[in-house]
């Protein structure tokens, strides 16, 4: 089938799909008149039941916590799969992670076969990345620990924490990034985060409560949304933040290693 025929077949198919979509959309309530019932039911009860003012995080880690455990493990599985797929194959070798100063070449335009000619990172990029690393860590940590208060949560905070590590790579060399996040430590952190989430849920069982019940003290009812309030929501959010940060650091670390270090072994006759 030629590409042209493929294109026409696709257009016919998507016309049918759009017709179906249009019919479905026509049956939806108008934009802005969502009838509920779960939204209003939850917002009416959330502050009394969980002492949290961040309703979305309360839903993620309390009302809908079971689904979030599943999504957390999707993340873990994706990272594990990626680590397996990007393993070093036979016929590849890994360069040393530290650049030889003679490799740095401000006028480099193309790499050679064995040695890499690496253009020097501009000073502006390094300074900006260095200056932003500290605030990024702070912001990520704040996001991960304030899930119950305001728009924040473990997922966003985790990715922002991982961003701080990428900034370290930008402002320095790959080896600085690797030293700050050795593979074993990051693996362990991800395991602690994801397993900790499941363990917090399982720990409710010996207390005679259902899995993932909120059994920690909820804090004083007069100050909803304080950092120490809302029981397991705060703890779970922190663990999720750690797990997500570790997952993303692993992801990018693997990609960086593949791109920068692992080269095809030169052919036997030599260069």
């Amino acid at each position, binding site marked *: 089938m030629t*590409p042209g025929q493929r294109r026409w077949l696709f257009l016919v198919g998507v016309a049918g799909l759009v017709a179906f979509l249009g019919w479905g959309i026509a049956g939806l309530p108008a934009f802005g008149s969502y009838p509920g019932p779960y939204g209003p039911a939850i917002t009416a009860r959330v502050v009394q039941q969980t002492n949290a003012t*961040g309703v*979305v*995080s309360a839903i993620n880690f309390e009302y809908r916590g079971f689904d979030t455990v599943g999504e957390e493990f999707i993340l873990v599985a994706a990272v594990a799969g990626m680590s397996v797929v990007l393993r070093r194959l036979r016929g590849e070798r890994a360069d040393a*992670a*530290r*650049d030889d100063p003679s*490799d740095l070449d401000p006028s*480099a*335009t*193309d*790499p*050679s*076969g*064995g040695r*890499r*000619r*690496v*253009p020097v*990172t501009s000073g502006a990029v390094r300074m900006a990345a260095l200056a932003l690393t500290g605030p990024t860590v702070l912001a990520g940590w704040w*996001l991960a620990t304030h899930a119950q208060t305001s*728009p*924040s*949560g473990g*997922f*966003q905070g985790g*990715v*922002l924490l*991982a*961003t701080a590590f*990428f900034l370290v*790579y*930008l402002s320095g*060399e*790959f*080896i600085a990034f690797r030293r700050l996040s050795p593979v074993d430590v990051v693996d362990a952190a991800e395991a602690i985060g994801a397993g900790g989430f499941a363990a917090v849920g399982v720990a409710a069982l010996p207390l005679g409560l259902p899995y993932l019940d909120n059994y920690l003290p909820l804090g004083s009812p007069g100050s909803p949304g304080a950092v120490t309030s809302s029981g397991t929501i705060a703890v779970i959010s922190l663990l999720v933040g750690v797990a997500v940060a570790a997952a*993303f650091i692993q*992801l*990018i670390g693997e*990609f*960086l290693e*593949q*791109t*920068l*270090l692992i*080269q*095809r072994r030169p052919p036997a006759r030599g*260069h």
Partner: protein
Amino acid sequence: MTTGALEALQVVVLLLVGGAATLVVAVPGRVRPVLALSFYGLLLAVLFLVVQAPDVTLSELVVGAVALPLILLLTIAKVRDPAPAPGAAAPGPPDQAPPDQAPPGAGQPGAGQPGQPPGAGGDGGQG
């Protein structure tokens, strides 16, 4: 903000989002759609903000502007072919044209490297 003004803002941002999605798909090459995707992620974050969803805004911002373009650019850097032998080929044109048109006779199994020499700008990145 009055409801009418908010609605108008929502309509404008929705139109921009639709336009940005078309842009991402229409732009040729490899690196340019990634940049368009980053811009699209930013616009999506603005959309989620004006539809009163700040948590989703934060998520989309950090993922769409940081993580996804980074992953895609690293992949592109990895699959850009290295120069075949030292001193042989001059640096090729910046990577825009080839991957979207049918390369003639590229159906042979994998021994050769059918790509071009990498574009200007240094391939090993920073190390």
